[in-house]
């Protein structure tokens, strides 16, 4: 609730804020201001991301899918100082604006992948690059995926060529509680901090079902699903107690008066619960709502167990990931405001994925207030989330459900942004939001569609027709192949 309130506040305040900031591009992209950051969400590894400077850009006469459910034909998109200024017909653009001919082309918000392991399972997939699963203990909320991210993974650049402007890098699913995920802007950088999405909350990765019990079944457990659940509960029991001990004192009590002595409040960050515990910090942050919970979970019955677990300990589930059986509980997911981050057609590779159907995303999308997401979990899939969505549209059409492009685009833009807690800043083409924008050579829901230009905070960071606007990782230099990864 806390976070929702902040997000709503930011959405109303942001446009005005942007107009006042003439040179937003020089400053870190604005994060919603919080009076006091909870200790569990303090960041010693802070973002150093800076938007890349760019003159204003206006794309003229394109078919625009705004990500809010609207399609505008023959519309212009104006970006300035890293922000969307306006979307509509015949916009006035500043004299120094770069003019882009969008006629016959389509524009969407930047594609967002809520489930990626780029950087933590980097290419080439050698042993040294296996940094995604801390498979030494079943409960590792203390690890942060960002500390494994290798910014030189060539997969970032290929994802950019597919229109991906932001993504969440998650720990793997070997563990019941795998650690913190991080949201990155898809910009080439030497450090991950320079990619870190300013102000985005962390994710907490949890996993149901087969993977934890396969990983630990012969290594002390869990070896069953019932032990999986016992493991989550034990961790959250600890975290609840920790949270109680570490509750910030009431605001009034914190206020020091001139006549009060400095003693009695020497604890930093209001910590009165003893030694800091990284595991408990993360779980307490999840209960608090500072960290968003993302759960790898395939089966409908297991998702229902996890929804009860969330109620038992008072946390909110942001999204179920993979959820090949989400279609069986689509109404409940919508009612509980939980997103389904799903594949278009993967199935059958293990028992809990045996009931996959190609209409899963369409059926999860069907109820009111739904939040269907196409995710990748793949360095290949992330390059063509638009095609994955197109397959869903085609499968839905076969059973008489017609899904227009302006609705489907939300599965790869606004809905993942919502599940990541960044919808107030990106994910749609609304005035005041980050100018994360893709220009497509045509309708993006086709195998022939290509991202021609990709803008991140208003800067053209990929141009299919301009090699000087195509990033290449250090790793690909000097490998003897012209062009490297293509």
């Amino acid at each position: 609730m806390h976070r929702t309130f902040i997000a709503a506040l930011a959405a109303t305040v942001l446009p005005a804020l942007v107009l006042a900031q003439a040179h937003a591009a020089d400053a870190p992209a604005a994060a919603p201001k919080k009076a006091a950051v909870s200790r569990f969400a303090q960041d010693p590894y802070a973002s150093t991301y800076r938007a890349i400077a760019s003159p204003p850009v206006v794309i003229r006469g394109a078919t625009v899918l705004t990500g809010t459910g609207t399609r505008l034909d023959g519309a212009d998109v104006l970006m300035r100082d890293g922000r969307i200024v306006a979307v509509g017909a015949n916009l006035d653009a500043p004299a120094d604006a770069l003019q882009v001919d969008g006629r016959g082309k389509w524009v969407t918000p930047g594609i967002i992948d809520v489930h990626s392991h780029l950087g933590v399972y980097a290419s080439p997939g050698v042993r040294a690059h296996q940094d995604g699963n801390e498979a030494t203990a079943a409960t590792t909320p203390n690890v942060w995926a960002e500390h494994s991210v290798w910014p030189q993974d060539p997969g970032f650049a290929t994802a950019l060529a597919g229109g991906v402007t932001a993504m969440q890098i998650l720990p793997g699913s070997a563990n019941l509680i795998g650690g913190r995920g991080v949201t990155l802007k898809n910009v080439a950088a030497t450090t991950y901090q320079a990619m870190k999405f300013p102000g985005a909350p962390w994710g907490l990765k949890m996993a149901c079902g087969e993977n934890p019990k396969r990983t630990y079944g012969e290594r002390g457990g869990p070896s069953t699903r019932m032990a999986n659940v016992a493991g989550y509960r034990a961790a959250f029991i600890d975290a609840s107690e920790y949270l109680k001990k570490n509750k910030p004192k009431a605001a009034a009590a914190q206020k020091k008066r001139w006549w009060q002595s400095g003693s009695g409040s020497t604890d930093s960050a209001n910590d009165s619960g003893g030694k800091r515990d990284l595991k408990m910090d993360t779980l307490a942050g999840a209960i608090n709502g500072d960290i968003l919970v993302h759960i790898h979970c395939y089966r409908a019955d297991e998702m229902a167990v996890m929804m009860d677990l969330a109620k038992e300990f008072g946390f909110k589930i942001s999204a179920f990931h993979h959820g090949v059986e989400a279609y069986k509980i689509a109404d409940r997911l919508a009612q509980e405001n939980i997103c389904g981050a799903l594949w278009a057609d993967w199935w059958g590779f293990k028992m809990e994925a045996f009931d996959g159907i190609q209409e899963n995303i369409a059926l999860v999308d069907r109820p009111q207030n739904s939040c269907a997401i196409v995710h990748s979990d793949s360095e290949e899939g992330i390059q063509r989330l638009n095609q994955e969505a197109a397959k869903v549209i085609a499968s839905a059409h076969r059973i008489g459900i017609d899904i227009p492009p302006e609705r489907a685009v939300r599965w790869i833009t606004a809905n993942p942004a919502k599940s990541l807690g960044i919808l107030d800043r990106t994910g749609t083409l609304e005035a005041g939001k980050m100018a994360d924008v893709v220009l497509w050579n045509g309708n993006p829901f086709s195998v022939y569609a290509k991202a021609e230009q990709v803008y991140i905070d208003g800067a053209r960071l990929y141009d299919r027709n301009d090699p000087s606007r195509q990033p290449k990782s250090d790793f690909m230099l000097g490998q003897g192949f012209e062009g490297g990864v293509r």
Partner: protein
Amino acid sequence: MNGRLRKTLLAVGLSLLAGNACAQNLLIRNATVHTAGAQGTLQNTDVLVQGGNIAAIGRGLSAKGADVIDAGGKPLTPAMFGGVTGIGLEEVSLEDSTTDQSLALGAQSKQMVVRPEFDATLAYNPASVVVPVTRVEGIGFALLTANSGNGGSIIGGQGAVVRLDGGIDPAGPRVLFVQLGSDGATLSGGSRAGQWMLLDQLVDEVRGRIPAGSPMAMLTPAGRQTLARYLDGGGRIAVSIHRAADIHQLLRWSQRQGVRVAILGGAEAWRVAPQLAAAKVPVFVDPLANLPGDFDQLGAGLDTAAKLRAAGVQVGFSPSDRAPHNARKIRQTAGNAVANGLPWEDGLAGLTRVPAEAFGVGDRIGTIAVGKRADLVLWTGDPLDVSTVATQVWFDGRAIPMRSRQTELRDRYLRAAGALPRAYPAAGE
């Protein structure tokens, strides 16, 4: 479609699929016929099927008593290739009790156990739920794989083309599978150089230069017999290999030993394209594999298929993971190859004619031509686009029910909830 009609269709479909005896007569009128053969694409064309074979292709054909389908101008193609895959050999990938596509007799030993006579087709289960799931997407045939793995050898064994019509027997000759490069290095003493040494040693044994009883001998009598069939221009050997230098070595080796190879993977094959074209080696690529997955694939790119074809190489497709459940994704891979420079007709050929010819069934399937089996697919649109689905699939001119376990699951949860749980049949079923 109501439940009763659907059940009837299912029953009819199953009985029709059981044998080849009652082949169908059929006239498909007014289709955009993509022949995948010499005739290219024919607009507003009819295809007449008699006795399960294509009897005529042209305009205004007479039905001659056959059932008539109006295609309404939609595309008609040959039933497509599902890649090199474990369809019918693997029901649930991670459940060992349901998988049969690799042999590991040497699992407890460090010694490589070479059994080229291992024939994965004997494990093929046409009743696998993966078969209908795949064929309703327009996939009509696939090459069953015999994979290399620990406890086996760089020679995985044999597979063959099967048609996904419910039959149990392969439709084509056996194909031998060999794994080379870094993926096979753990099976060859830790070095890819050991692979050529071992292959030469095996050939020596087949040719009698190493006597059967010698301590150097690695093969059973059946293994020697099997391997002999692939030497001197015999059966096709499908070689999984990526690195350009390794492909050079493969071309030398195959010319020296007189074997016919096809390349699976070939991420860097484009660097060897002229030599591959000259040696008439077909290459089955995964057009989506554009990242350096390992150090053998540093030259991977989206335009590999286009470059190979431009040099005159026969290009087919095969997704690199060989996952049977994703076999239907092959159409998307071909579409991406076309989006990255491969001519459209070559994209279709890579899904139909090229694999059929490379794996020994080109005389019967893979093109729409008079005399060929009527394994056909009618599509809603461009068959290479992800926005298209198959509307009807025929084997030997017989329409199959467009149903699978997945459509059953879908329909169970699509309908409104009733008084009883969904586990009960819907009213009217």
